[in-house]
């Protein structure tokens, strides 16, 4: 399993899950917070990935 994107999704899922359960008490709020956090992780990674694209390592 070497897909960077898949690993990013997996990592984001677990971290969002733990944080949402930790921070919120109501199941509805947990789902909402978790979904927002998960989306934020993915969107930020994609945006930062494209911003770094022109720079050589």
């Amino acid at each position, binding site marked *: *399993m*070497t897909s960077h994107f898949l690993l990013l999704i997996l990592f984001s899922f677990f971290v969002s*899950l*733990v944080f949402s359960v930790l921070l919120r008490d109501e199941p509805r709020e947990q789902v909402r917070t978790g979904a927002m956090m998960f989306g934020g992780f993915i969107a930020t990674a994609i945006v930062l990935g494209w911003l770094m694209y022109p720079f050589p390592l």
Partner: protein
Amino acid sequence: MRYDSKEDMTTKSTTAEGPRAAAEPGVLVLLCLAAWLVPGAGHFWMGRRQKAIVFLLALPAMFLIGLLLNGRVFPFELSDPLVGLAAVADLLAGTPWIIARMMDAGAGKVTAATYEYGNCFLIVSGLLNFLVILDAYDIALGRK
């Protein structure tokens, strides 16, 4: 605007009061130890079973994925501070870390494409468990 300190204090004292069954120092230490050993055990103890089950499943799963991705369970090397800090973060995962150390798992394969991902999963698993321990501690003190 008039600031009513008496009202504010009343509100604070109301929020601070909660179940303080585990407020004794000895019980708190036991609670934190249990929460470290088994992710979610502290929440289970405090009656937050739904949360406990999520932590029990998610955190060891993250640690296991980290190992499968050829991550390294870092040794305690004080000469290299970053390695030492990573070792502390790994240790915070609790039982998964103990099992990994007993089985000599987590040697890490630097040449693997997923090595850094593996480290990330292992370290974050431990750090998240630390947050879970602190949350259980706060619940026990009646702060949440």
